């Protein structure tokens, strides 16, 4: 009994830093944000409790559309990232051995040694009207005048896919590496072709990696700010941009906090729907 108590205390002490961290850095700010979000400004310095900030999101098509657009673009980013990352991961995990494997893996990692801002500026240097791609095309005689590649939705997608790649490749490589070659060989041996082995053996095995990669990429894209704003230009229209604008340029913290919560809730809903659709559970994916 005595031992039980002291070991309980020990556990509590052991967990204390984690609990304090969770409480002080995650829970507390959210509680604060929540109270902020249900405060309606009725006049300067006069506030009352109401859901008006939340209603604003649904009543003003502008915000609702922005969110829908952000979500659709993020889903697209996730899908494209998966399509590109899967063959790369398969190649790294299954086709390569030894140093070449480590080399390619580091190559995927390399862009992340510089900050996101620098990476995005890199894309801007490449794609702007007087940039490298445009000048090269002109020099080759493919086009007559300069072409602006920046400030389109496609550019935003390129930037997002690029900055998401690692977060898809890492979980995919690790799940694919855990797939013993003999399963793939058995898949062929029993009459399967490349496509059926991929569908029946490789993808089901990699599913936890696919799902966790997709969740991470989706959330990162949804929450990204720099890439859409810098590459999207005048039409970027990203939901985080709205939150930023409410907080920083409009001083409307109440609205910003409500948008923040809506982002949290709606993105969780989308992830939940995605898990349901792919018949995966979060514990399976993360466990």
């Amino acid at each position, binding site marked *: 009994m005595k031992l039980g108590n002291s070991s309980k205390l020990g556990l509590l002490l052991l967990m204390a830093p984690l609990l304090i961290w969770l409480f002080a850095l995650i829970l507390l700010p959210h509680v604060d944000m929540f109270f902020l979000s249900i405060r309606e400004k009725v006049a300067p310095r006069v506030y009352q409790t109401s859901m008006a900030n939340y209603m604003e999101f649904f009543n003003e098509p502008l915000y609702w559309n922005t969110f829908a657009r952000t979500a659709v673009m993020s889903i697209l980013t996730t899908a494209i990232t998966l399509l590109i990352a899967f063959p790369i991961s398969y190649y790294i995990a299954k086709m390569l051995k030894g140093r070449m494997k480590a080399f390619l893996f580091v190559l995927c990692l390399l862009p992340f040694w510089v900050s996101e801002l620098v990476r995005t500026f890199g894309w801007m240097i490449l794609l702007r009207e007087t940039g490298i791609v445009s000048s090269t095309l002109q020099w080759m005689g493919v086009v007559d005048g300069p072409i602006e590649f920046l400030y389109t939705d496609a550019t935003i997608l390129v930037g997002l896919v690029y900055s998401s790649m690692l977060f898809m490749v890492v979980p995919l490589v690790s799940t694919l590496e855990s797939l013993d070659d003999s399963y793939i060989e058995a898949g062929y041996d029993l009459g399967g072709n490349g496509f059926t082995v991929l569908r029946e053996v490789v993808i089901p095995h990699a599913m936890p990696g696919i799902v966790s990669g997709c969740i991470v990429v989706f959330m990162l894209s949804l929450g990204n700010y720099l890439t859409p704003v810098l590459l999207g230009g005048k039409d970027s229209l990203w939901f985080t941009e709205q939150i930023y*604008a409410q907080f920083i*340029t*409009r001083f409307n913290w109440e609205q910003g906090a409500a948008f923040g919560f809506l982002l949290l809730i709606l993105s969780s809903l989308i992830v939940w729907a995605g898990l349901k659709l792919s018949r995966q559970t979060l514990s399976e994916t993360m466990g």
Partner: protein
Amino acid sequence: MLKQKLKMVTGLLVGASVLGLSGAANAETLRLLTWGGYAPENVIELFQKETGIEVEVTKSNNEDMISKLRATGGSGFDLAQPSQDRIAGAQFEHEIYKPIDLSKINADLFIASMMDGTKKNTTVDGKVYGVPHIWGTSGLIVNRKEAGSIADYTDLCSEAVAGKVSYRLKRPTLIGFAFSMGMDPFAAYDDTAKYSEIMGKVEEKLIDCKSNVKSYWSGGDALMNLIRSGEVTAAMAWDTGGWKLNQENADVTFVAPKSGALGWIDTFALPAKTKNEEAAYKWINFVMQPKIAAMITASAGNFTASKGADEFAEPALKKQFQDSFPPEAIDNIKWYPPVPAGLEDIEGKVLDRVKAAQSN
């Protein structure tokens, strides 16, 4: 034995770190929240030599200053430099500033008319919250060779410069377009309904104009790059940016729009919880000396409210100013009156809708 030693070492370490901390606290610092170029290295050095006070500079802009000070309830900085029109509203709503003790300011160093104007505009409940420092205008930066026809804000929407235009999605753009469209937004500041109507018209114009825009700029450097590369030939921006570019490319310069450049004055204001008020006053009186003010002008590109500093200003800068501002243009400058609380909510919505509108 070992334990004792350990104790001693720990004690020493703790003692040393406490000493170190207090040592750091002893060296007086002034935490300055300001704009790029307003506190150049050479001025900071001179100030430290004279007073022994270190200056910590945080570069910012109007919205960011209010956000930062609002987040902390007015602490974290000892002196801020918001524009004069953005003080009263923010103070009324968020109480982030502290009244200025005018007796501690050497009024003789200031151009009297500017001092009076600023005092008037930054007065809330009978207390003064700001004194002037640097003033300038925003208008148009134009590449005269490529976009010579651009003489007013609304010209940015003309076919001649399609796809080669940039401006900010911020309130100066709304105000500028309103004037350019023949309306007077400043006169409507106290009439919310009228102001909303004006903004509605501006919104329509800006959405219409969106297809002409290459990108909405947000950082001065990004805009300068766009103009340097020729991707943008006409933009709405600050005068100093135009003059700087003019030194590199004579075709590019600042143009005061027909409907009037927008005049702003950046001030000194004390954050509500400033920790080193004395140092703040020392800094104000130091940088307003004509010679120091001229050094700041050289760095920021804009002129100061310091009396007699013109004498020390670089001739090239004066020449550029005179080129951009013939006497009638100076008279035509629209000085920002203080923004009443609440107006920015209306403007915010307009800006959101312009941003969200699809061009073409």
